[in-house]
């Protein structure tokens, strides 16, 4: 799968060669390209319109989060986690807090776990909505963007009321929650769910049976289940290729085990299946939230966690199902208040690796669609 990296320099200056009779053309897309979802540079090797292969150049948004992690105490590192996948900040926070709780051998109280599930699933819906809006915009449908962002606004309002921030929410703490849920939290979440159900049908009405949408997405960016597993691709992309695997079911965390929901899978693993999988996932998240809100127990929201955390020497790998895939934290503790090694396994970074395989043989216009369907966030890819 290795493409030779000796890319022939773009030799258009020499006059005797027009850009049409050159057998292989190298084109640079990005890093400031409207459709690359952030700062990603893709070097495309083209034969006319067909993509021979591509190479991603990343690192433009690298902030060295893992190095900083080694110089912050466990609680101080919490806000950094939200800045990685800034679209799904809450699930980053959940992953990190649960990893450290496992290290400290502490369990968050049931009420905290329920609120965490509610907020994380809301975050999954918000992330999928943002994905749908921008993905449809890349393929040319302008309207879904406004619908999805109008509905996403409601979720951000709930976050703002709960923890003061809309995007990088820093809602969870190691051991539980910082804030008790505000008065009327359950009612507001319930109203939102009833508000959202017909809206998801609206998105489906606009796109699912839209002939041009189907034609632009069916059979584009196909990837088989074996390639997905070999490349380590996870999340909706893996499920769309037919692998029925979701960490919330496979290795339940934060009492997902006592909510029932299905895992959608696709058959062909193309862009259209990924679209369908994510739409069903949004509906399943609504189901989970409904059950979580109904069964919200009373009780404390914070476990017995020492103010100064000095976890015993040892290491832990804990991963959760973020909207983009498996988000893992590998924390090595040396007994001090600061982690010795803070490794983050981002889903977008590994999923982006599959872009080359998915775009082989497609046309240039489809590269945009495939980047959109991978749902990558460069903050998470570059850390």
């Amino acid at each position, binding site marked *: 799968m290795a493409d030779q990296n000796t890319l022939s320099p773009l030799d*258009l200056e020499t006059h005797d060669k027009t*850009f049409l009779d050159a057998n292989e053309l190298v*084109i640079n*897309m990005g890093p400031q390209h*409207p*459709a690359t979802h952030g700062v990603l540079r893709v070097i495309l090797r083209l034969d006319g*319109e067909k993509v021979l292969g591509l190479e991603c150049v990343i690192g433009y948004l690298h902030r060295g989060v893992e190095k900083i992690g080694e110089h912050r105490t466990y609680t101080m590192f919490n806000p950094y986690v939200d800045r990685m996948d800034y679209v799904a900040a809450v699930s980053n926070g959940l992953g990190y807090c649960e990893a450290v709780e496992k290290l400290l051998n502490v369990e968050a109280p049931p009420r905290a776990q329920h609120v965490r599930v509610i907020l994380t699933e809301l975050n999954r819906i918000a992330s999928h909505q943002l994905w749908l809006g921008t993905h*449809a*915009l*890349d*393929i*040319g*449908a*302008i*309207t879904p*963007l*406004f*619908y999805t962002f*109008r509905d996403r606004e409601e979720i951000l309002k709930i976050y703002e009321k709960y923890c003061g921030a809309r995007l990088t929410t820093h809602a969870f703490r190691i051991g539980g929650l910082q804030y008790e849920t505000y008065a009327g939290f359950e009612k507001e979440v319930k109203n939102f769910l009833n508000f959202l159900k017909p809206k998801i049908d609206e998105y489906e009405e*606009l796109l699912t049976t*839209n002939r*041009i*949408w189907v*034609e*632009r997405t069916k059979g584009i960016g196909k990837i088989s289940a074996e390639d997905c597993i070999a490349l380590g691709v996870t999340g909706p992309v893996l499920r769309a290729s037919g692998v029925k695997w979701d960490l919330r079911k496979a290795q339940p965390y934060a009492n997902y085990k006592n909510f029932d929901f299905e895992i959608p899978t696709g058959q062909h693993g193309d862009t259209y299946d990924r679209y369908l999988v994510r739409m069903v996932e949004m509906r399943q998240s609504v189901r989970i939230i409904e059950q979580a809100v109904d069964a919200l127990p009373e009780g404390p929201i914070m476990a017995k966690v020492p103010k100064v955390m000095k976890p015993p020497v040892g290491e832990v790998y804990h991963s959760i199902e973020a909207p983009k895939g498996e988000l893992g934290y590998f924390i090595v503790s040396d007994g001090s208040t600061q982690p010795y090694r803070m490794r983050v396994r981002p889903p977008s970074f590994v999923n982006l690796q599959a872009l080359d395989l998915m775009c082989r043989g497609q*046309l*240039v*216009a*489809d590269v*945009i669609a495939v980047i959109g369907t991978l749902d990558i966030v460069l903050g998470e890819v570059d850390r």
Partner: protein
Amino acid sequence: MNALIQYIESYLTSDKTPGAAGNMFWAFVYIMLVFTGLSVAVIAMNWLERKILAHMQVRLGPMRVGPHGLLQPIADALKLLLKEDIMPAEADSLVFWAAPFIVVLAAFSVFVVVPFGPQHAITDMNIGILFMLGVSSLSVLGIVMAGWASNSHYPLIGALRSSAQMVSYEVAMGLAVVSAILMTSLNASGTGTLSMIGIVEAQKAQGEWFVFKFFPLGLIAFFIFAVAMVAETNRAPFDLAEAESELTAGFHTEYSGFRWSLFFLAEYSAMIAVSSIAVTLWLGGWLRPFPNWLSGPAWSAIFSYVPGVTFLFFAAICFYNTARMPKHPYFRIQTLGLGAFGAVLGLIGLILFIPAVSFRIQDIFWFSAKVAGFMYLYIWYRGTFPRYRFDQLMKMGWKVLLPMGLGVLILTAGVALLQIKS
């Protein structure tokens, strides 16, 4: 001097178009009327497109410049006039300068033969539809020149793509038009006509619009033309030329200021031109709905009031909105403006009620109402459809529309032959 006046009045009684009647003065007046009307229509289209698209997308559209953004198009036009008009360094200045004019020429000269009424057309060429198709194919030249003269790869690729698209959809368009013209020959003399007014007369004589003639065939031909015309003007699902999300920018990226506004003007007038062809050929140009079925004097009276009623309806909307305008002093000027606009519309509505005026204006009203329907369709397409990929677009042009066009043509000819035989 009175010879001149007499020359002018002589035309008023004749029922032929000024061009056909050889009356140069009225021809000039009609030209002025049509082109001012066209630019007003383009300005209105600019505002309508922004507002309707916005309301489709759960937002308000321009609200700040004038009441409900009514002055926005004027602001745009002014901005474009004042903007610096740059020309790329090694651009081919002659071709770069000429391209927008050719495109505008092609888009405007189509209106010479557009029949707003039995005698409301600048002229009545007997090759009307052929002339329209010929001239609209000239705009491809302008686009190719614009793309090439910008002297950079992406406009060139954009120009080649959009001209390839226009050329291939012209073929499908031609076939659809031929099958409509074939229907005009089902009269006693057995010879159809290419002249636009002749086509509408034929529809009136045969008592039904061509879109309903030989039931599915007319509709299919109309459908082919409707799709091809959207592709011809690089609009909505076929606007691949200026697809910003891909590499290639449109052919008019290097243009700015006034030259760019020429392209913008040409695009809208081409849209209006092509939809007026569709209205003439299939939707019975200026004929009011059910001319033969509901043909009594009472019915024609009722139908003659419709233009006045619509304008009064618009005026009512304006007044209703002035009531809804917030009471803040800052909005006082806007409420006044909207009220004045409503008053003007109301006045026009009232004038349209005068029988003499409404009799003459009625045709133009029905024609432009149908064209406005098409304009709404254009905006609706842009709101809902994603963009076709270039190869899908060409595949649909050659492998779907062309065979369908041929099929419809052959079937129409067959059915027409049967009808003549019987």
